[in-house]
């Protein structure tokens, strides 16, 4: 079942068209990476899903209920973590979670249990100072806890790691990893290594359109190119190698100073030829590697 469905979504701010007909569906239980450069329309899309912005066209359904602008009914299925979550600085974490729980309509006893559990998960159980004294990383972790207080079916995180240092980033990604399977997560980012680490689905948003969409393994398989990377010890080695390389492989080369990448439709034949040339000419490369497609390559390819 798809937990979130977006159909032909359109949104402009004055003259500029930000979202130009996005359609996508997020299957239940997935961790969905929503990738795009700054200004690609990620936050706008998320705010439309939450009913905070009014779309110019299209339809959004969450758990088969249509999202209506200004109304908050569908938000009971959703937990939202903004990119820089803002809290009431005079509250303590437990008070804030209690407040969020009450707003979400939880009972007193379940608020107590749930907030204890979540504060433990995000590592804030022993913190009793006011939120005003929190670091950015702590606020982000509290944000995750508050987003999960109502046990939402869908967690929407807007660039949850982009403002954090490496330790904070790892902590937030670990928390998101922990809830995998229990909650569907949509996770917008421009940090591609984060997507590779925790997502199983991804969509690339570019200029207001989805240019790539699918499971991570599907995407990688579809965009697989047989490429061979060779790093030579010297520029002269590389020059000699290029000289000996038969014409059928020399047509598709990305060359740098002392290394090069060969592309071919037939990886095995290419490998065999390359190894032969290397051994016949006594060229000892520093590194010899078959390149697998990375999310970064897929992204760059998609947005070019």
């Amino acid at each position, binding site marked *: 079942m798809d937990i979130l469905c977006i159909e032909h979504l359109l949104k402009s701010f004055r003259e500029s068209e930000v979202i130009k007909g996005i359609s996508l569906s997020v299957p239940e239980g997935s961790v969905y990476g929503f990738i795009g450069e700054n200004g690609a329309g990620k936050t706008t899309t998320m705010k439309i899903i939450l009913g*905070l912005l009014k779309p110019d066209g299209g339809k959004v359904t969450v758990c088969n209920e249509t999202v209506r602008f200004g109304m908050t009914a569908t*938000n009971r299925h959703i937990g*939202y973590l*903004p990119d820089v979550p*803002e809290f009431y600085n005079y509250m303590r974490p437990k*008070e804030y979670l209690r407040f969020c729980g*009450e*707003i979400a*309509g939880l009972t007193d006893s379940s608020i107590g249990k749930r907030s204890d559990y979540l504060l433990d998960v995000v590592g804030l159980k022993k913190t009793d100072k006011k939120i005003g004294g929190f670091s950015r990383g702590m606020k982000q972790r509290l944000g995750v806890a508050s987003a999960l207080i109502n046990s939402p079916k869908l967690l929407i995180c807007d660039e949850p790691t982009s403002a954090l240092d490496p330790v904070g980033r790892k902590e937030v990604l670990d928390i998101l990893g922990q809830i995998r399977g229990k909650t569907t997560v949509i996770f917008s980012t421009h940090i591609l290594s984060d997507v590779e680490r925790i997502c199983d689905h991804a969509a690339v948003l570019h200029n207001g359109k989805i240019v790539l969409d699918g499971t991570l393994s599907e995407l990688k398989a579809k965009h697989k190119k047989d490429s061979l990377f060779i790093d030579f010890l010297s520029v002269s080695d590389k020059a000699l190698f290029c000289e000996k390389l038969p014409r059928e492989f020399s047509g598709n080369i990305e060359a740098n100073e002392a290394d090069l990448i060969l592309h071919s439709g037939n990886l095995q034949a290419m490998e065999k030829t390359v190894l032969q040339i290397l051994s016949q000419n006594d060229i000892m490369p520093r590194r010899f590697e078959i390149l697998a497609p990375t999310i970064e390559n897929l992204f760059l390819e998609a947005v070019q």
Partner: protein
Amino acid sequence: MKSFFSFCKKELLENYRTYRFIVLLAIFAVFGLMNPIVAKIIPELLTTVDLGGITVEVPEPAAIDSWMQFFKNIGQMGLLVLVIVFCGITAADLSKGTLINILTKGMKRHTVIYSKFTIAALLWTVSYLLSLIITYVYTVYYWGSHDLPYAFLAFSAPLVFGYFLISLMILGGICFKSLYGSLITTGGIVILMNLLGIFPKLGKYNPVSLSGGTLELLNGQKVPGDFIPAVIICLILTVSCIIGATLLFDRKQL
């Protein structure tokens, strides 16, 4: 309804922990104390000043002088303090983004407006009553018990005008999402109402007359009929501002 009370609780905590409520209480308590004391002392001070042979006849201070001070202080400084304390009532929550978390938990937008108005009006009422009670106790202490004709209407009027100012600040905050927007809306409307004061015929319909004018009920210069239309208009405007703010907020892109 549960989320209304939760949000009210949050507003109370906010006003308590950010010292807003304490400041409001302290200032209004000081006003309450000052009114009778100033009324009592000023004539005595004037008689002790050497005016170079000019004799100033100062009438004996009376209870009404204390109430004159009360309406002057509350109607000017008191309302100014109210505006300063509550001008960020909706603007801060909106511009900082703290409300986003709460709205995405399923809280209805109009509940935010109702809760904010309820708590601000409650704190204003408590502060105002504190000032009123202190002034009353000291006035009775200095001048003994005295007649206060149409006291209910006279003393309710500034309170009602305060509710109107709160609703204006909420509406301004929602419209402009900024503290200055809230201040300019409130200030602008009050200045406009003061300008309307140049038409004496409009006086009895002008809510600004409630911000201190009802002293004239106590000293017998006016009758309730001179203020009741303004009270009704003020209440209608307050309700309209609140309804306007909820309608606007429901349509606001955040």
